Structure formats: C-alpha cells, structure tokens
C-alpha cells in the first residue's frame, strides 16, 4: 500500500513535471520542471531496486547536466524572454496526436506483452539474489568492470572528446 502510494506520487510528479516543462513559457521554469521530473524519476528508480542509478540520476542528471543547461540559458540571456516559442495550433494538434498516439501504441504493446512475461521466474530470482548478495553498487560493478570494461573505458575517452569538442565549438573565434 505504501509502495503504491509512493510510486503514484513519484509518477505523478514525473508526468506533471514533464507536461509543465513543455507547457511553460519561460525556459528557466521549463528547466526547473524538468529537474523536478528527474528527481521524481530517481524515486521510481529506487522503488525498482536500482539504487545506484537513482543516485547517479540525482547527482549527474538532475545536478550536473541540468545545471549546465541552466548556465547556458543564463549565458545566452534567454531567461526573461517572453516571446513565445510555442508553435501554432496546427503544430500543437499534430504534437498532441503524435504524442497520444505514441503513448497509446506503446501502452498497448506493454499490455499485450504483459501476459507473456519477458523472462521466467528463475532469472528474476537470480537478479534479486545478485542484488542481495553484492548490494546495488556491487551488482552493477561486476559486469561493468569485467564484460564491459572496454566500452567503459571508451566512455571515458568519449567524455574527454566531448570536453575538447565543447571547448572548441563554444570558443569565441578571434575576429
């Protein structure tokens, strides 16, 4: 009961934040709604036993990346722009149709696939046992540093490249 309540709470917060993000005029408000949604999502992550990822979500996403966005909005001085960047009625209608269509389609697929559970009970138990024995971090670290070591290292390289790239792109060119 408790679980259900919290889930619904987080879910409502996430969904509401998302809707408000695309609906609010001010980019800064949009961003704040998005941060709210991300926080709520990390709650959902916890309820799904992904504690480590929930933490990363808060620290990296809601924290670092969103702050980066905020910086940029401030930098470009977009914060108090009142000129609406919302498209016209036709576009809104299209977006509504597309969005609800997409949602309906995926939801239908989810409900249809529910009967045929994705995997047997055995693997579910194995995953839970893994989390119990190694803890949330350990369970994730095991494959990350063994089977996926090379992609992991490549990620490091990617981040380096991204930093260099960002600097190069955003640098003010000498006149």
């Amino acid at each position: 009961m408790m679980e259900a309540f919290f889930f619904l709470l987080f879910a409502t917060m996430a969904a509401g934040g998302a809707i408000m993000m695309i609906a609010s005029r001010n980019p800064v408000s949009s961003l704040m709604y998005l941060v709210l949604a991300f926080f709520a999502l990390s709650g959902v992550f916890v309820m799904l036993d992904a504690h480590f990822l929930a933490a990363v979500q808060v620290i990296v996403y809601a924290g670092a990346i969103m702050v980066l966005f905020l910086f940029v909005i401030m930098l470009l001085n977009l914060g108090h722009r009142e000129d609406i960047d919302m498209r016209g009625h036709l576009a809104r209608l299209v977006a509504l149709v597309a969005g609800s269509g997409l949602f309906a389609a995926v939801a239908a697929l989810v409900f249809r696939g529910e009967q045929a559970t994705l995997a047997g009970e055995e693997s579910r138990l194995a995953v839970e046992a893994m989390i119990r024995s190694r803890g949330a971090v350990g369970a994730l670290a095991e494959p990350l540093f063994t089977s996926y070591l090379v992609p992991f290292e490549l990620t490091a390289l990617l981040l380096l490249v991204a930093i260099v790239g960002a600097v190069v792109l955003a640098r003010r060119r000498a006149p």
Partner: protein
Amino acid sequence: MNLDIELASLILSAFLFAVGTAGVLVRRNAIIVFMCVELMLNAVNLSLIVFSRSLGLEAQVLVFFVMAVAAAEAAVGLAIIIAIFRHYEGVDVDRFNLLRW
C-alpha cells in the same frame, strides 16, 4: 489496491517519451527541444531499469552508458547551440536549416 510497479513504470516510461516527443514537435527554442530529448532518454532509461529486474543487470549497465553518453552529448550539444546562437543571434530552430546544403 494491488499495483504492479513494473507495469506502471513501463506505462510511465511510455508517457514520458510521448510528452518528450510532443515537446520536440511543439517548441521552437533549441534548448527546450534539447531538454525534451533528455526527457526521452530518461524515459528509455526507466524502461531499461524495469527490464533489468527480469532480464539481468546488463540492462542497468546500458543505463549507465546512456547517462555517460547523455552527459557528453549535452556538453557538445550545448556548445553547438552556443555557436549557433552567436551566428544567428537566436536559438529558434526554424531560423536555421543547417541540415540542408
């Protein structure tokens, strides 16, 4: 009330994704479009975490990578937006059509 969290999470994921899509379609501000893309990424992450409970923890590894790549992408993407802003003096996606030559 007996709520299947996994099922509900998948529905939530679908909803967030749909909202992100709608946002991309409806907004002209490049940064907000960008934010919508981030939202869609998170929706997918949510799905992956749901699947990780039954299919193995590799799915969570993938979420981890998605986050890392999203960070890189945000850095580069925002840098591009800054560059574009300097050139066009605006971030309205309708004002530039760089994909066409």
